[in-house]
């Protein structure tokens, strides 16, 4: 009983056992047991079998495509996401609130809808595609198309992580910097940007993690050519359709391990930012 008493601090409010018990049971049934089944199935191949499946050239190529395009997309999103957050917080212009609301569109629009819409725009006969096609540039059905879909779904993560920090940043620090003789550019690069860095890094990590796992918006525009424009989540689906369940589980386990690592890094950034700047983004 002593150990249990130390596990939670005493409180007059009832319902601790009921709510925590339900939370843990529901979490175990929906999340924990199925993920355990996944890990067990991939280890069922044995050590050598696991690595043979994980290091298969087509698997490696798909992982490379997924991670490389996600990295580029997250990089572009950091630049434009920071810019959009800045513009939305600092400037007043007509239609600002509508654009502010529009930032969340990728969260609300189903990925399959985004996928076919982007394909319609960037296909060689599409709205944008017909203008770049004569220049010899193909967007849809190439890794460029994958990157564009990933930019679409990742943008709100960057904007929404930076926005609240920018809103809270006090103007006085900038005024002090200006008073001390710094130019506007110096104030932005040496005073504002460093305090935004944790939020920018978190936004980058969130956008990257989402892009790596993205499926619906990517597969329509990707073209899905093995070794060229085939993403890792699609290869999981292909392995499933071949009834190669163990092969699918191996790719999924590799991806899961990497996303847990990302989650860990995000938590580290936030802990560091709380110590350094007194807030968690």
């Amino acid at each position, binding site marked *: 009983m002593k150990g249990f008493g*130390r596990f939670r*601090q005493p*409180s*007059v*409010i009832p*319902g*601790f056992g009921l709510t925590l018990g*339900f*939370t843990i049971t*529901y*979490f175990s049934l*929906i*999340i924990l047991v*199925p*993920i355990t*089944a*996944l890990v067990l199935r991939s280890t069922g191949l044995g050590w050598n079998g696991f690595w043979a499946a994980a290091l298969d050239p087509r698997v490696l190529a798909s992982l490379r495509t997924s991670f490389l395009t996600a990295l580029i997309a997250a990089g572009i999103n950091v630049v*434009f996401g920071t*810019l*959009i957050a800045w513009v*939305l917080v600092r400037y007043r212009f007509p239609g600002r609130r509508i654009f502010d609301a*529009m*930032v*969340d*569109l*990728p*969260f*609300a*629009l*189903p*990925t*399959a*809808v*985004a996928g*076919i*819409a*982007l394909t*319609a725009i960037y296909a060689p006969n599409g709205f*944008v595609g017909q203008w770049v096609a004569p220049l010899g540039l193909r967007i849809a059905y190439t890794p460029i198309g994958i990157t564009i879909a990933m*930019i*679409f779904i990742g943008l709100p993560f960057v904007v*929404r992580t930076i926005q*609240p920090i920018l809103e809270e940043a006090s103007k006085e620090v900038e*005024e002090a910097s200006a*008073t001390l003789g710094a130019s*506007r550019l110096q104030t932005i690069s040496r005073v504002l940007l460093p305090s935004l860095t944790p939020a920018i890094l978190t936004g980058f990590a969130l956008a990257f993690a989402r892009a790596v*796992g*993205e499926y*619906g918006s990517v597969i*329509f525009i990707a073209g899905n050519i093995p070794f060229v424009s085939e993403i890792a989540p699609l290869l*999981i*689906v292909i392995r*499933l359709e071949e009834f190669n*369940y163990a092969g699918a*589980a191996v790719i*999924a386990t590799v*991806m*899961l391990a990497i*996303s847990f690592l990302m*989650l860990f890094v995000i938590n580290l950034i936030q802990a560091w930012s709380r110590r350094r700047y007194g807030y968690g983004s």
Partner: protein
Amino acid sequence: MAARPHAARRASPTNEPLWVRWALILAGLVFMALFLVLPLLAVFSEALRQGIGAYVQSLQSPDALSAIRLTLLVAAIAVPLNVVFGIAASWAIAKFEFKGKAFLITLIDLPFSVSPVISGLVYVLLFGTGSVLGPWLKSYGIEILFAVPGIVLATIFVTFPFVARELIPLMQDQGTGDEEAALSLGASGWQTFWRVTLPNIKWGLLYGVLLCNARAMGEFGAVAVVSGKIRGQTTTMPLQVEMFYNEYQGTAAFALASLLALLALVTLVLKSALEWRFGDELAATGRGH
């Protein structure tokens, strides 16, 4: 006098020159127009390409209607379950101090960092051929995979954190004072919840439900893996969009997609309205995901 323009420019040392401001605004808006507005417009223009008659007609096809029915059914099961979970989890986390709380909060966010395809795959491995559970349930006539229960499970998985992560910070901000007052005045635990806590969190709860529902109705990857895509039986709206699209039925695909796009727009409008009207009754972190 010659110094005046210079003085005007330096008047506000914490602001950028006007031309820089407008250049930045323009760059941001062009980027958003290209990547956010254009896809949305494309959905509606492709849907209406062959006229309003073809649009309405394609929405009345049996495939489209059964997909709409299934999507509504799945959301009607998955969203309430995650609401109950979200309330229970935030009650336990916000009203009590216990060991491992931070870890539990991280765990609740877990489904957000898992690829949708993997969210579906885990259930295929749990209930599919070669598993222990699948054949055992089948011997009792219970089908999970390639049937509605599997679709519901996969949808619950991907929408798992939405309500909880909105309510946890909100209830942590509100503290336990109101509940303690109600209890000390003789209210029972359930009375305290229904009459004190629930009214306090109602807008935050609605906010979480909106986001949860949008994702539940629009989920594609996780559902695609478990559904088996049996026409008229296990195709939700996003899956039916894919089927129409792959069969070169462009109008039908985009017409059904336009309904989902409308749902997204309605979600955004309601969400923004909640943020403007009841911003201080939502979680401080409610804007991010």
